[in-house]
């Protein structure tokens, strides 16, 4: 329990009624261990520790709270603020069809997320979704998306193996011609340094101009989350993040790394394999999880 650990530190530095350089530093050494073991990127951790140090030193210790409790509160509040403060779904407003593009590394959960998001928006905002199969590389990726669509009663536009950019354009036309006010484009997983495939995403974005671009990331991602997210964001300027497999026991420090380096909001979390396993992202819940 983090607060117990920190209480232990403050007990050793007795009679402290104020947070000083010394007791804060020792606390932050403990926090560093906690964050690194939770997969928060080491640079992100360093920046966070420095930011908290400034806030903490000299912070008033209310008579009802011990210095340890104050520290925990400062850290907790700083992390929550870093993660976006409060839960907030996108508005999904605008002239139809509203278009969402999914992107990310291989196996992160994009295809599954397409089904989940389509179901969520049909249920909560009465949207009439269309899924578009732009992954022409992975064996049976189109089968997978079609099977998901079928199980949800959501149509899937595909052209089999073709040009993903053409497929996205034709998918958009199909949506307009058939009264779909929501289009979700599934794309192939790709490495952020695969220039050709990143170019492909740029061309899809140029051609259909999706209003939302979601970077789909696996909650168990380690240190490299920062570099992957940064490159995807620098090149493609995504608008939000979906963190998947949060039903696992990974602490999910990647969330902090991704939010910190890109500034983009984490919108949803995947909490299972079924289509209803999508929840809005709550910063305070995530912080409790990261801090263990």
């Amino acid at each position, binding site marked *: 329990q983090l607060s117990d650990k920190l209480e232990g530190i403050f007990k050793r530095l007795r009679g402290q009624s104020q947070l000083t350089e010394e007791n804060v530093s020792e606390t932050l050494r403990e926090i560093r*261990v906690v964050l*690194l*073991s*939770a*997969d928060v990127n*080491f640079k992100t951790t360093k920046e966070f520790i420095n930011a908290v140090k400034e806030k903490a030193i000299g912070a008033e210790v209310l008579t009802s709270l011990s210095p340890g409790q104050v520290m925990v509160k400062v850290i907790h509040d700083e992390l929550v603020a870093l993660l976006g403060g409060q839960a907030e779904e996108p508005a999904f407003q605008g002239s139809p069809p509203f278009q969402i593009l999914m992107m990310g*590394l*291989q*196996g*992160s*959960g994009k295809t599954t997320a397409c089904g989940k998001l389509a179901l969520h928006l049909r249920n909560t905002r009465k949207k009439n979704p269309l899924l578009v199969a732009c992954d022409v*590389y*992975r*064996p*049976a*990726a189109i*089968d*997978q*998306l*079609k*099977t*998901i669509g079928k*199980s949800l009663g959501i149509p899937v536009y595909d052209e089999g193996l073709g040009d993903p950019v053409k497929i996205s354009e034709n998918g958009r036309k199909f949506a307009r011609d058939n009264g779909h006010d929501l289009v979700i484009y599934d794309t192939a997983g790709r*490495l*952020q*340094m695969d220039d050709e495939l990143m170019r492909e995403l740029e061309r899809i974005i140029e051609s259909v101009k999706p209003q939302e671009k979601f970077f789909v990331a*696996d909650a*168990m*991602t*380690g*240190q*490299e*989350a920062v*570099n*992957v997210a940064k490159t995807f964001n620098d090149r493609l300027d995504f608008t939000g993040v979906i963190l998947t*497999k949060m*039903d*696992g*026991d*990974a*602490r999910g*420090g*990647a969330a902090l790394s991704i939010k910190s380096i890109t500034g983009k909001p984490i919108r949803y979390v995947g909490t299972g*394999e079924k289509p209803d396993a999508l929840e809005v992202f709550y910063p305070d819940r995530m912080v409790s999880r990261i801090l263990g």
Partner: protein
Amino acid sequence: AFGKGKLTEQVIENIEEKLLAADISMEVASHIMDEVRVKAKGEEIDSMQLLAWMAESTRNLMPVTPVWTAKGKPHVILMIGVNGAGKTTTIGKLAHHYKAKGLSVMVAAGDTFRAGAIAQLEKWAQRVEVDIIKHQEGADAASVAFDAYAAAKARNLDILIIDTAGRLHNKGHLMEELRKLVRVLRKHDEVLPHECLLVVDGNTGQNAIQQGQGFNAIVKLDGLVVTKLDGTAKGGSIIPLCREFGIPVCWVGVGEDLDDLIRFDRDEYVQGLFL
């Protein structure tokens, strides 16, 4: 790195960050740096020596990769791991590898749950030109494994590779399903599977250790496959796994194509970590 000089705390901190960036845990990083400190004995050392000692310390934490030998006919390989790690793709690559060696291979579509899972393995089987045993979607995975072994045996094949659904190790009911699959398979022969490989995504952080622990508790792991090392991740999170359970890394996935699979080489991997 740092040229020539004494191992100051600043140098140690810089090196530690390089280790952390590779997903090497703090505990393993301290272990490596402690060993290096002892060897340095406060003397001046150059960066070449430093890297060599770090490589040696890291290498000693990892069991050597065994030379592959068939342990039965058919030699049965069970692929397990969390969702999206790269199990199905690795099976395609392995089937291709063994076939190229002149062995006869069969694959079993043990993922009867996920959308398009059977179709995905089917596409690989067609491409590599190997037999595939599959039931319908939603069928009992254990029975697919059971039937596949019988078929591979009857056809006198060399290798049977069984695909399983991705599952998170903290999901009790899914781990029970895996336990049942192994139990049913063992009705044929108590030693099955001859080779159980845990597939770990190379991007995974410290959760790799929990994955190893969770899966090893269900079925003894014979080796690891670390995938997606063609990306920028270094896969260092598997080192504690290797160390704690004495499990060697057997294969590394370096891409999405047939040939993108290399037999793990401990020295090359460790060199790559510190360059």
